[in-house]
């Protein structure tokens, strides 16, 4: 059986590789555009996927409301930017305040969702919490739809066209550059937080053994809340950035983005932080090539096929630990 898979795998890789090289040679600029586009996409996925993976790592819950936190980030930025824009404030100040408000609001929502919808179910069967998460997701979508509007609203980019980037702007826009650079900075900061700080170590310890963490004086509830807040902050940043990139938002944008980021997290190995980043980049770049070279209309089908394939062949993902090892 095994050699059949291997043969098929090698054959597909060979054909794709051949076609790929031919394409790359015939139009290298297009290839570069797709690669950078994929990197941008992957960066956004990564900012959202982190929240899924950190929450899963610590309480083994797929937080389906996480996409909505991202949407709320984008919404908040839109509202703040519109109001301040009307008052005629300076564009740079608006951008900073919009991001700050987006992060604060999303964190508040993430924190509250955990307290209301998940904490009371901490010791209930996992399915209960999952259903609660889906309910929370629907509630937030509909709440924002009613509070705002079901229509798409234009989102004027908060990011100017940088003069120094002008010569390369035809390959990658200033917005895309900002997205990639911001993501790298966020990842590095997050890495430092998790690896070296007191709260970061407490997060890892809590993810590995909650009872032992409590026996060392760690307030487990507080650590879980912090995890939600950190994940919400990165999702909010992702929301603002993508809104600048796409130029319009509505109450429903969190659904698809959330699902894609979830797929990325599963692809990388849910529960693993480097896995979420890697999975996001792999998904973003492969989606970009797939739509660029094959069928653009099947973009989402492609992502979901990847999900199905991983779940069948490697449910623990690229960097995931095997189920037995997972704490």
């Amino acid at each position: 059986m095994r050699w059949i898979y291997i043969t098929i795998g090698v054959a597909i890789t060979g054909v794709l590789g051949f076609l790929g090289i031919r394409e790359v040679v015939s139009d290298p600029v297009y290839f570069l555009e797709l690669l950078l586009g994929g990197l941008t996409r992957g960066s956004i996925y990564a900012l959202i996927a982190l929240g899924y993976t950190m929450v899963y790592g610590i309480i083994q819950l797929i937080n389906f409301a996480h996409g909505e936190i991202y949407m709320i980030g984008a919404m908040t930025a839109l509202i703040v930017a519109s109001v301040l824009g009307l008052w005629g404030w300076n564009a740079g100040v608006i951008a900073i305040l919009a991001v700050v408000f987006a992060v604060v609001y999303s964190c508040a929502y993430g924190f509250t969702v955990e307290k209301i919808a998940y904490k009371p179910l901490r010791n209930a069967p996992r399915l209960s919490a999952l259903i609660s998460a889906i309910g929370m997701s629907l509630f937030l979508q509909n709440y924002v739809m009613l509070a705002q509007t079901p229509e798409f609203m234009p989102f004027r980019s908060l990011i100017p066209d940088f003069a120094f980037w002008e010569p390369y702007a035809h390959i990658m826009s200033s917005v895309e550059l900002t997205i990639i650079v911001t993501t790298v900075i966020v990842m590095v900061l997050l890495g430092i937080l998790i690896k070296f700080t007191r709260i970061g170590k407490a997060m890892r310890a809590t993810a590995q053994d909650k009872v032992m963490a409590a026996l060392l004086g760690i307030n487990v509830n507080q650590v879980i809340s912090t995890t939600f807040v950190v994940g919400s902050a990165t999702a909010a940043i992702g929301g603002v950035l993508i809104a600048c990139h796409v130029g319009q938002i509505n109450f429903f944008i969190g659904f698809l983005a959330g699902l894609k980021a979830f797929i990325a997290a599963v692809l990388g190995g849910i529960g693993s932080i480097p896995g979420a980043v890697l999975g996001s980049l792999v998904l973003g770049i492969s989606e970009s090539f797939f739509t660029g070279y094959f069928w653009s209309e099947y973009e989402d089908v492609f992502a979901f096929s990847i999900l199905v394939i991983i779940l069948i062949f490697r449910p623990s993902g690229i960097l995931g630990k095997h189920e037995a090892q997972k704490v």
Partner: protein
Amino acid sequence: MLKLKDVHTYYGNIHALKGINIEVTEGEVISLIGANGAGKSTTLMTTSGVVPAKRGSIEFKGKDITHLPADEIVKLGICQVPEGRRIFPYLTVAENLDMGAFLRNDTDQIKSDMDYVYGLFPILANRRNQAGGTLSGGEQQMLAISRALMCRPKVLLLDEPSLGLAPIIIKQIFSIIKKINEEQNTTIFIVEQNANLALKAAHRGYVMENGVITMTDTGENLLSNENIKKAYLGI
């Protein structure tokens, strides 16, 4: 110093502790012995606030701690080395020790305490950057005790420190336990199935059967008691 008064603990319908009374005096080493399933681990988990007592009370230095959450109890100075050590498998040895000092912020003292435990167990110093999960059983037990010492405990609760270890390692661990009690004046509460070992190390002992304390006396007297000899010492 630590007083359990008529403590009842349940897991759902299972009545695991049926009104136990235990008193630990400052500076003492006491042992709680009993067969598998007697309720020894439950006694420690209830004391630490992980499994709540349904009735009865637990007092520490005159303060009622029955309903405090686990992390608050650690703050008062009651630290536990639970059954099975529960080393964080993906944290390094040094990070595991850091977690022991989680509640402290006296950086210099933490550093010197870390040197102290590396002195007690030099093997840990060699392994300081290795993941906890890769240590042997004996090394994990050493790390678990060291991690608890990093809390600067007033009372150290040890759940079956000898479980699954080679005799030579058990001997080493028990001599260190004695040393901690004598040098740091730390009060120690050991839970063991290995009655011989635990009673020799202890000033006083308690015997538990099916969630009830059936006997208490000095370690020496329990060791020479005929019933204990038959039931727990295999003599």
